[in-house]
């Protein structure tokens, strides 16, 4: 009787752990690899401060409290830097004072705990000064991650 009870408890615990793990490892709706991209500005576009960056992904973008992924924007530094801009929705306004000239930006998809989720995309902008943004014709930025 006691043994049966222990077995039942073990089964229930296993089932609960399986459900938790299933909930934890749920990824993109299609079940494929995570993706991230930048639809605006185009790679090499001329921009002026402030300018908007629009990110795309096959997973929902949101703040860490939502349990969703988010994006870090790194300006002229690597992904291991502690200096970045947080992107908690698909569009973000870049207000940092970038000097006029060419700048390399990495958009990195992050887990809610801010660890690297894998995919990232690198693009460049040419800052011309403050004023209105002009996303002139250039191909979309290419991604270093899988499935873009």
């Amino acid at each position, binding site marked *: 009787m006691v043994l049966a009870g222990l077995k039942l408890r073990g089964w229930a615990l296993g089932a609960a752990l399986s459900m938790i793990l299933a909930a*934890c490892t749920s990824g993109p709706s299609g079940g494929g690899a995570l993706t991230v991209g930048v639809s605006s500005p185009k790679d090499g576009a001329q921009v002026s401060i402030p300018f908007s960056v629009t990110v795309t992904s096959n997973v929902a973008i949101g703040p860490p409290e939502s349990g969703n992924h988010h994006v870090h924007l790194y300006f002229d530094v690597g992904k291991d830097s502690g200096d970045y801009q947080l992107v908690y929705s698909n569009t973000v306004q870049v207000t940092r004072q970038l000097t006029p000239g060419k700048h390399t930006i990495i958009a990195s998809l992050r887990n809610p705990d*801010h660890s690297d*989720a894998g995919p990232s995309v690198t693009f460049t902008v040419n800052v011309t000064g403050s004023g209105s943004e002009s996303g002139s014709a250039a191909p979309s930025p290419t991604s270093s991650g899988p499935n873009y």
Partner: protein
Amino acid sequence: MKLERYSRSARRLHTAVYLLTLFLLATGWWLLVGREGEPSPVARLLGLPDAALHVWVGWGLAIAALLPLVLARRGVAAFMRETLRRDPGDLGWLLRWPLAIVTGRFARHEGHFDPGQRIANVAIVGLLVALIASGIGLVLVHFGPVFVVLAAVHRLATFAFTVVIAGHILVAAGILPGYRGAWRSMHLGGRVRIDQRLKRRPGDREASSR
């Protein structure tokens, strides 16, 4: 006369835990107030993101907290026994406590810890367990609905822990007249001068004249 309230190993563990905890509180609050992505002075110095620093030092705290369970089980058992004890005079002691922190005239109590310390021990250890467990969970889970629950637990435990630790530091620092000199029990050899405020308690050892 001077007494040694805590053993050297207990004082070392206390120091390790509070140094790691204060660092984690600093980086944790830096992230909580929305400074994520803006390197703190320590992060700038070490060249690492604050979130990564928080995780690494958090692992250090988890190890420091688990070590006594392996290396000092008798000490842990004694701490638990003295913390969870209940005596008839506890309520009276607690009722006199608000006045005693100013006058130093504490009521008599049984056991190594006074009733106030016992409550603080339960709160501090309980919240540390909640913070470490939810912190490890956050690192392992990464995202999803379980992450949301763990993040909420971690955040709420941080708020409560900050208040409890602020109170503990206020008492332990010896700012309040009734606790003058209390900080020595965990620092500079751990020898406390016995006077009207700090009375000898079971488990105290007379300090050797060093």
